[in-house]
């Protein structure tokens, strides 16, 4: 247990930041001591990311007011390079990787050569990157190109990238948002070791159990101000939620029971999905069905092919097999067909395949949904605007106006925009890939309620979520995916997180045995 009364290693005083009119931070004091993991909590748009971006030089000195101290001496970072060379490491919230370079090069990006002077030793880079991944308990080939990784794997690459700089202060902005249990555990093991080495860490998350698991102190931001600082002794999920939102939550997951005997809205038979860029990923011989009003979850480890199944159904990647919607066989060759059949998809990586940064918030919601908002091909401005405002209100999107730029929205708000887009067409089947990624606890609750409401209206939901608790709490039925196949299925109250892990492990053991037989 670090001594939080000792002199802080890294501190910020009276930080205020204004984005042309939007006051993101209003005089925040914050500090972290060596060997401490300090949670930074708050609702979407509270200013968490903005604060760590300031502490890391992404928002350079001069663009904010207030002071930063490192080792008790005032510092101001002109750029991330500055912060980095002073021992500050940073894992950003959004995926920021170099897609055209290899994993190893990504991990060591921006560092000087290993060994003789300015020369790069690919081999050595690969070995060292491999060692770090082994440490993190994950299996990513250092020679693979990042373009071929799943978003969770990309996130792990970013974490490795921050760790190799051997920082004294490490800031992690929602590092686990797309990770599942096993990876989170491995990450925590690493963080604990760093902690023992005296690294000071700032940890942003919306997953409150994680705070209970590894944080020593928590600071809650609300509307750009520190709402409360909580010592470990007083940690309690309810307190966190109350101090973040001013509301008390009764139950995290709303009551829901799948209607008995409801007609099937989505039926998938023998679906085989080609992986992105050839053979690396994929899913084979998938059979599943979702009844009207049913919430079905796809559980599995990272890279298991859950997203790929959704993409196959939605026509985003080539797939063979049969898809039926409300009993009708539909031929889905592209997302267009899927939408026509009443299927909507919420994608996983909002930056890469979710948002249109060239269009404002409002147009991002209505894109693809303009038909009912137009007459003779002309968009009816008034109607569009009112339906945007309705959608924004329904999901509590915190943008200043429908004309606001998407780039300026906080991560959680961006997620809500995409939600609004997917819901606008009243789909029969909703495919959701990590629907609450980066969404704060209160809103998450709202989203759960919303999903249950949709289910009650007869929509069939198929959800991929890495947070098993969420999946198990929400879903009527869970399918376990391992290595591109469905290996297990269980209903509400038939199992929990351990059941998923057990079936995954069993599937892997089986595969290894089979592989051993082939090579023998």
């Amino acid at each position: 247990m670090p001594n939080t009364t000792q002199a802080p290693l890294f501190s910020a005083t009276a930080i205020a930041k204004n984005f042309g009119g939007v006051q993101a931070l209003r005089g925040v004091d914050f500090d972290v001591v060596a060997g401490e993991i300090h949670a930074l909590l708050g609702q979407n748009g509270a200013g968490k990311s903005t604060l760590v971006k300031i502490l890391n030089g992404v928002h350079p000195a001069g663009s904010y007011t207030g002071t930063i101290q490192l080792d008790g001496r005032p510092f101001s970072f002109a750029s991330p390079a500055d912060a980095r060379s002073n021992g500050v490491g940073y894992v950003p919230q959004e995926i920021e990787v170099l897609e055209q370079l290899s994993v190893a090069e990504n991990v060591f990006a921006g560092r000087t050569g290993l060994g003789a002077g300015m020369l790069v030793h690919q081999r050595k880079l690969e070995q060292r990157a491999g060692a770090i991944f082994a440490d993190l308990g994950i299996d990513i080939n250092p020679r693979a190109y990042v373009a071929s990784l799943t978003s969770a794997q990309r996130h792990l690459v970013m974490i490795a990238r921050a760790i190799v700089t051997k920082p004294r202060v490490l800031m992690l902005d929602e590092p686990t948002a797309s990770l599942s249990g096993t990876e989170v555990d491995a990450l925590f093991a690493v963080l604990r070791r760093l902690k023992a080495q005296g690294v000071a860490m700032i940890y942003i998350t919306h997953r409150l159990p994680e705070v209970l698991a590894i944080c020593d102190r928590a600071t809650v931001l609300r509307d750009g101000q520190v709402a409360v600082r909580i010592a470990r002794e007083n940690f309690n999920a309810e307190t966190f939620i109350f101090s973040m939102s001013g509301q008390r939550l009764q139950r995290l997951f709303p009551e829901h029971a799948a209607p008995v005997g409801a007609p099937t809205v989505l039926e998938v038979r023998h679906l085989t999905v080609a992986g992105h860029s050839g053979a690396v990923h994929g899913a084979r011989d998938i059979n599943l069905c979702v009844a009207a009003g049913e919430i079905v979850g796809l559980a599995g480890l990272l890279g298991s092919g859950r997203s790929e199944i959704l993409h196959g159904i939605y026509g985003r990647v080539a797939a063979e097999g049969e898809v039926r919607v409300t009993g009708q066989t539909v031929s889905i060759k592209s997302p267009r067909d899927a939408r026509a059949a009443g299927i909507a998809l919420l994608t996983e990586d909002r930056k890469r395949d979710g948002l249109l940064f060239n269009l404002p918030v409002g147009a991002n919601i209505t894109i693809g949904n303009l038909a009912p908002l137009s007459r003779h091909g002309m968009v009816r401005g008034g109607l569009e605007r009112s339906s945007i405002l309705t959608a924004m209100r329904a999901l509590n999107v915190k943008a200043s106006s429908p004309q606001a730029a998407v780039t300026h929205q906080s991560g959680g708000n961006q997620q809500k925009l995409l939600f609004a887009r997917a819901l606008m067409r009243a789909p029969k089947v909703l495919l959701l890939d990590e629907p609450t990624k980066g969404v704060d606890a209160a809103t998450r609750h709202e989203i759960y309620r919303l999903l249950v409401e949709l289910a009650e209206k007869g929509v069939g939901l198929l959800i991929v979520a890495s947070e098993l608790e969420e999946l198990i709490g929400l879903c009527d039925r869970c399918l376990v995916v391992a290595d591109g196949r469905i290996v297990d299925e269980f209903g509400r109250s038939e199992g929990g997180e351990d059941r998923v892990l057990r079936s995954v492990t069993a599937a892997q053991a089986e595969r290894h045995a089979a592989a051993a037989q082939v090579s023998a």
Partner: protein
Amino acid sequence: MNSAAEVSAPPRDARSFRRRLIGLIAVGEVGVLAAMALLIAFFWLLEPAFLSERNIRAILNVVSFVGIIAIGQTILLVAGEFDLSVGSVAGLSAVVAAKLMTAAALPVSVGILGGIGVGALIGLLNGLIVVRLGIPAFIQTLGMLFIGQGLIQVVTGGYPVYPLPEAINTIGGTDLAFGLGWSFAFFIVAAIAADFVLRRTVLGRNMYATGGNKEVAHLVGINTSAYKINAFITVGALSAIAGMFVMADLGSGGTSIGSGWELTVIAGVVVGGVSLFGGAGTVAGGVVGILMLKVVQSGLVVIGVNSNWQQIAVGVIMVMAVGLDIVRRRYFIAGA
């Protein structure tokens, strides 16, 4: 209470005027319009003849040619691609139309349709190859620039097609009003129509989505390939029309019609705020950008700048106009 709802009803307070002013400055085309207004005032102060009817007419006339192409290029840039073959397509379409009317002795209308057909066909080809085969537009349309130039020589044997049927000279010589003819009329109508389509229709919105992020557009059900291919066809057909208007204006199917236009057109629309990276810009902006470049070129002659310095000045002003626009965005829109 939701913050989005707050803004939907802007506060009617004292700052309202300031807000409205900033709102005006934030409009995309204002940057280049301001730059142009400044330049016009400058030229006019130094030499009032700059705003003489004759000069205005000459500028508007030449703008109508490249302007027609700029409309297409803007649409294509919004859809996230661009076309270097426009000049070459303009030239080829003109000589093909001319040959159809003269050597093949077909009616003028057939010749014109043939010319437009050639342009649209090349646009289709460019589009198919870029979209379906994944060849970068730069390479495909640069290749097409060469191919078009070669075909111009093949079609004409290197000799301008001259004389042309009287009907063509009549089209070129018609004075509809203020000494401006059909090319200007077409240009204005096409510009207004295209601006409207991009701004107000579903088609236009989908075009912006396609250019902004193709993958996202695809996922929301937009047939991005169709949008891109159609944008290529549009720019091809408009280039053809521009080429034929030049031919009618000059009364000769010259082999060098359109040569060198590829960069001028792109430069003009980019000066007018159209993004090279897709998904941003308006037809109004693109057209004003082209107009500004032509105003500069003409103004420098009118005020009697030494001819060697004219090109230098054009280069500098082009960069400065874009710079002004960037400053405007940075300080007014961010600050709004």
